[in-house]
């Protein structure tokens, strides 16, 4: 049977439900205290950094990791609830989210003991910010074409080359980079790449900002010029990164950040609509909420399957494909549903709807590109269906 992937029913345990209330209370309090305004995209990094420490103090970073490394040994479902509340409140999570979601789990699984002990607790406390060095100028979707190389030297490795599209590198303490240590083999073009932990402040690293079309600075290009990386920073097996790369993606692909990025457009539309919208607007809102609620259920289901020890890799790709396509299309649908706003309307400096619509419209294009393009995801699903 081709239909060989499955979304288990969702059943959040009582502790997750309680935790949700706790997170909400915390966030409401922080918003009221002015710690952040609910606009994660534009918060200054200093705000995000301070927020990370507070979240770390709450025990909400590295939640599922062993206590021995600063983790909290809580369930994936509890972690899921924290993440979706953070996103739904548009909290500034970017100083810790990459480390929490991707870098930390990789170090936990493949890192050397010394590094695990040294780094993981500092991630969990909200102290360290991570970025991921994957894409290169000549390898975008095709990560296995990476050519930035690490050459063995005394006590470590020398890195030379370039990475690009590295989000948040200018704010990060560490990067986990995928580097070429051997040429690919004929049998396996994915052979020869190795993961390393690199301190972003290492001598020989130059970071060039890449401004995006919203005028914001998130992407960077990173130049490596004889950057020394100690042996202890080798993560996993030399040349064998391709074996390590796949497991971790389920964490990354199905999270609420894959369908909540433009939710503010919908929320503000509901505000504009008021309690008794007309037939057209009510229908339009209902249609989008149906997608949102379904995506949420599927996303939570993947968290539950992870908790149950399953490896829902195809399911995660399905959630990301559906989720990013939906969140990408949402601002335009919202625009077309919105009541017309002509000269009879008052001007306003605080037009939350207009602001939300603009911001989400501008970021929409990247949503089906970052972290695995639509094309890559559909390829993964097709493979899951047995087509390739």
């Amino acid at each position, binding site marked *: 049977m081709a*239909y060989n992937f499955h979304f288990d029913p969702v059943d959040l345990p009582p502790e997750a439900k309680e935790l949700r209330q706790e997170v909400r209370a915390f966030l409401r309090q922080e918003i009221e205290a002015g710690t952040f305004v609910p606009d994660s995209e534009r918060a200054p990094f200093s705000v995000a950094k301070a927020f990370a420490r507070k979240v770390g103090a709450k025990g909400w970073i590295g939640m599922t990791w062993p206590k021995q490394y600063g983790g909290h040994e809580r369930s994936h479902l509890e972690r899921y609830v924290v993440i979706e509340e953070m996103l739904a409140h548009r909290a500034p999570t970017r100083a810790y989210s990459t480390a929490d979601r991707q870098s930390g789990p990789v170090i936990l699984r493949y890192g050397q003991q010394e590094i695990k002990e040294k780094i993981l607790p500092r991630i969990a406390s909200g102290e360290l910010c991570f970025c991921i060095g994957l894409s290169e100028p000549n390898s975008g979707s095709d990560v296995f074409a990476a050519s930035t190389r690490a050459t063995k030297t005394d006590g470590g490795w020398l890195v030379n080359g370039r990475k690009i599209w590295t989000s948040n590198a200018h704010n990060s303490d560490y990067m986990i980079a995928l580097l070429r240590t051997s040429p690919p083999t004929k049998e396996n073009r994915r052979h020869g790449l190795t993961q390393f932990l690199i301190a972003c402040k290492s001598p020989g690293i130059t970071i060039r900002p890449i401004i995006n079309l919203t005028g914001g600075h998130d992407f960077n290009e990173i130049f490596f010029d004889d950057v020394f990386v100690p042996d202890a920073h080798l993560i996993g097996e030399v040349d064998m990164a391709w074996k390590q790369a796949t497991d971790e993606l389920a964490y990354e692909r199905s999270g609420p950040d894959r369908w909540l990025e433009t939710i503010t457009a919908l929320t503000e539309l509901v505000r504009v609509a008021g309690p008794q919208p007309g037939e057209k607007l009510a229908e339009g809102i209902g249609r989008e909420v149906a997608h949102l609620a379904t995506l949420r259920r599927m996303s939570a289901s993947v968290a539950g399957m992870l908790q149950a020890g399953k490896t829902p890799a195809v399911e995660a790709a399905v959630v990301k494909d559906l989720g990013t396509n939906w969140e990408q299309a949402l601002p335009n649908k919202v625009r077309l549903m919105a009541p017309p706003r002509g000269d009879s309307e008052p001007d306003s400096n605080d037009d939350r709807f207009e602001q939300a619509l603009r911001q989400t419209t501008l970021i929409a294009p990247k949503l089906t590109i970052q972290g695995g393009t639509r094309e890559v995801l559909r390829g993964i699903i097709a493979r899951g269906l047995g087509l390739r």
Partner: protein
Amino acid sequence: MSDNIIVDTATRIFADLCEPQTINAAEEGRWPAELWNALEESGLTLAWVPDDLGGAGADMTDGFAVLRVAGRFAAPVPLAETLMAGWLLAQAGIGAPPGPMTVAPVHEDGNIHVGADGKLQGRARHIPFARKAKHIAVLAKKSGAPMVALVATEWLGIREGASLAGEPQDTVTFDGAIPISTGAAPAGLDPVALARLGAAMRTQQMAGALEHILDQSVQWSLDRVQFGRPIAKFQAVQHNLATLAGEVAAAGAAADGAAETIALEGPASERALLDVAVAKVRAGEAASSGAAIAHQVHGAMGFTYEHSLHHATRRLWAWREEFGNETLWAERLGRLIAEHGADELWPFITQGT
């Protein structure tokens, strides 16, 4: 009874007795007696009737799971309708008779009355399988109070119609009919709540039919050779099938949500409205885009009557419309969200979980 036993029983019965020829024959009006009898003997048809009213007394979730299987096989029998009728009768403490049943009304504006003389008045449109049913469980009003009535079909005026799938979909006139029995329905059980249950059931059937067309399309793409290779190897076909897989998964997840909530708290609650609306809207969209992809992948072959693809796709087209289409449910859902307001959107969606 465990989930698995019930579902496995249903799967075995359909696999044995619901062949494509059976479905074609049913469209020509031949009653699939063997299939129906097997379902009835297994107790599946009265799964939602409590033991003390002569039924199997299964969990509602089991019944929904059986409907998923029935949808996968395009079973041309009123299994959903009989389940629903049994449930409705049980709400009023009325025992379920044997044989196929259906329910009325199916529309939210249904308007059937029990007169002072105990006779029914009214007409109901689009009643599935009415002409094949022995009895109809009717949700009526008597002096403004909801009332359930069991009526034998032979006394009723039936104007025959057919759904897009070629299944009976009749207009039933109740005027003057004398119910076999009647009972007061619990408060809150009105045609609106009944349509929610119906929508949740159809959504399960749709999810099953979608799972089936995904299987069928994947298999076809692996078997069908064009330009020297299986069409499964073309990136455009792969992307189409990946998209179909997403729609199938979404419909299934949404359908599960509605089923769980109704099993937990019945169809009358606000949360049931939320989850049923989400499910019928999302599954309806999946039905439309999913059937289109399955047909595109199958090419001309899928457009023939002799290929069985249309058993599933025509049902998907019919079911997306039954018990309220996407537009109707989206509007209901949108009004509910608007009432609660922008700041409650997220808490509302995450309620319960």
